[in-house]
């Protein structure tokens, strides 16, 4: 409990520094001419239009979205049965798979990326677009795994017991009681994985960097030939998209709880 003014100052400064690069980039993205000036010289939304009109940018955007949707869905498909199994059965050995699922997220990403590169290269699949989807799904399985573990943990076991005394078997319990209660956690797990896949660079680059251009790869490749305002507009688009997704999670789920605070509101 430091003095209040100190905290307000700290929070203000932190907020300012965190926002500064984004604000400058947002300013740059509005330049009328093909220059990176801040404050912008002239105002134009042309660089936002270019994301959708330029085939290169549009292609990269679509690729990124497709990869993110598919890999987030696959990540949830891996995480859901695992988290359910650990919750449903008394099987301490299954925790080993949970730890496995957490590991890629904790290790430096380069390592996982290199592991995938070795793997796909060895099995001659290097550069195949679908390998990015699988790689991202395994890389980001941590997120739905964490949200779902929390979600299942929040289901009062007496609901399940009540349902079974009323004649529901395992499958019916899952469909009629557990699923409706963990749905917000499924959605937030998907959303976390989606956003991170959208922004992911190194795994996608190592696995299929020369054949598949996602938006981060496209930005990085473009960086080497000089900066353009389109990069700025793409960045702003990404920030907005990301914030929108997290805003939705916060709107429909319990964000502080998802992030580990005990918040009981009833």
């Amino acid at each position, binding site marked *: 409990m430091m003095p209040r003014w100190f905290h307000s100052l700290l929070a203000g400064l932190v907020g300012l520094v965190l926002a500064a690069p984004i604000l400058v980039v947002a300013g740059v993205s509005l330049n009328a001419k093909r220059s990176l000036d801040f404050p912008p010289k002239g105002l134009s939304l042309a660089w936002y239009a270019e994301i959708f009109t330029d085939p290169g940018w549009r292609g990269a955007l679509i690729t990124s979205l497709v990869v993110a949707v598919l890999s987030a869905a696959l990540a949830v498909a891996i995480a859901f049965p695992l988290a359910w199994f650990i919750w449903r059965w008394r099987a301490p050995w299954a925790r080993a798979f949970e730890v496995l699922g957490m590991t890629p997220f904790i290790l430096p990403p380069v390592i996982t990326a290199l592991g995938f590169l070795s793997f796909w290269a060895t099995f001659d699949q290097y550069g195949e677009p679908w390998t990015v989807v699988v790689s991202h799904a395994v890389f980001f399985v941590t997120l739905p795994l964490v949200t779902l573990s929390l979600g299942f943990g929040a289901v009062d076991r007496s609901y399940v017991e009540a349902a079974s005394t009323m004649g529901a078997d395992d499958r*019916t319990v899952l469909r009629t009681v557990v699923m409706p209660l963990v749905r917000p956690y499924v959605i937030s797990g998907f959303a976390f994985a989606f956003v991170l896949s959208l922004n992911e660079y190194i795994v996608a680059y190592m696995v299929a960097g020369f054949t598949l251009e996602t938006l981060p790869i496209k930005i990085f490749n473009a960086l080497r030939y000089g900066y353009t305002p389109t990069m700025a507009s793409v960045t702003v688009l990404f920030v907005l998209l990301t914030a929108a997704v997290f805003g939705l999670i916060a709107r429909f789920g319990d964000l502080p709880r998802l992030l580990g605070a005990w918040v009981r509101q009833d």
Partner: protein
Amino acid sequence: MSALVLDGLTKRYGSFTAVHGASLRIPHGQFVCLLGPSGCGKTTLMRMIAGLEEPSGGRLLIDDGDITTTPAHKRDFGMVFQSLALFPHLTAGENIAYPLRIRGVPAAERRRKAESLLELVRLPGMGDRPVSRLSGGQRQRVAIARALALEPKLFLLDEPLSALDAKLREAMQIELKQLQRRLGITTIVVTHDQREALTMADLVVVMSEGQIRQAAPPMEVYRRPADAFVADFIGMTNLLEGDVTAPGRLSVPGGELALEGLPRQGRALLSVRPEEVLLHPATTPGGANRLSGTLSFVRDLGASVEFRIEVAGREIVALTRPQDRPAVEPGGAVTVEIPAGACVVLPAEGQAAGERPS
């Protein structure tokens, strides 16, 4: 033919035995209370009956069919949980209709059935309320209606009223008993509240440390407790221990008592209910079964007056109606009379009560 038979049901968790060889016959239509302090194994026993715990040993039979290994969802029992376990994502009506829904009963029929069940528990027209907008007592009723929706063979309630305040709890006890009598359904309630058990049960099953101590009608449990634990747990009692000096005579601290049913020799333990103990001023002439002591404390509870008397270093409690209050004052000498008919001779300490036929 017995409706439900527990045959040596046992539950062990590692080296800890939660329920030890519970055997019991429950005839059709009985209202049974499993009564005991927390940790006595009553909830574990009920969960084994419901199919929510696997017994480590023993058998469970219903109408002579063995259901020991039948999964909970195939037993057709109705259960009310301590937490009530009302599904938060469903309305009151949907909760009640849940067992019908998963059996594929058409929606219109479900709604009709839910409405009639709501009427049964005196909540007509509340079907569309979300569970979160019901009061404690209303939730209670919804949980009961839901458990009854399938007309179960057995109606189980695990501490169903513990979340309610005292007044509402008493009212619900009476209502639950009336409901059970009307439906004639075999019912088992777990409770730690002896008043609740005495109010509702046809058969009280007293448990302690994983064992059934006594299973008998309420007044028998009260008047003829099987052992010291039961005597002490059900209501208040005075436990007096002494040596048998002659046939029918027991020497207790502070005097001698004459009574029947004593062992021929050795030590014996008596239970005497406070309301049976008589209290007289010390000037009263002495006589049979009278002990002298000092009145240490009096409290007037309105409906009754409680006296605490020190007799030879031990405390004896006596209870009288206010209008029968004897002329005694705290600190003064008094005479305590223990009528022979009020004494229940208990098995001496250490004798395993669980092995007695019950």
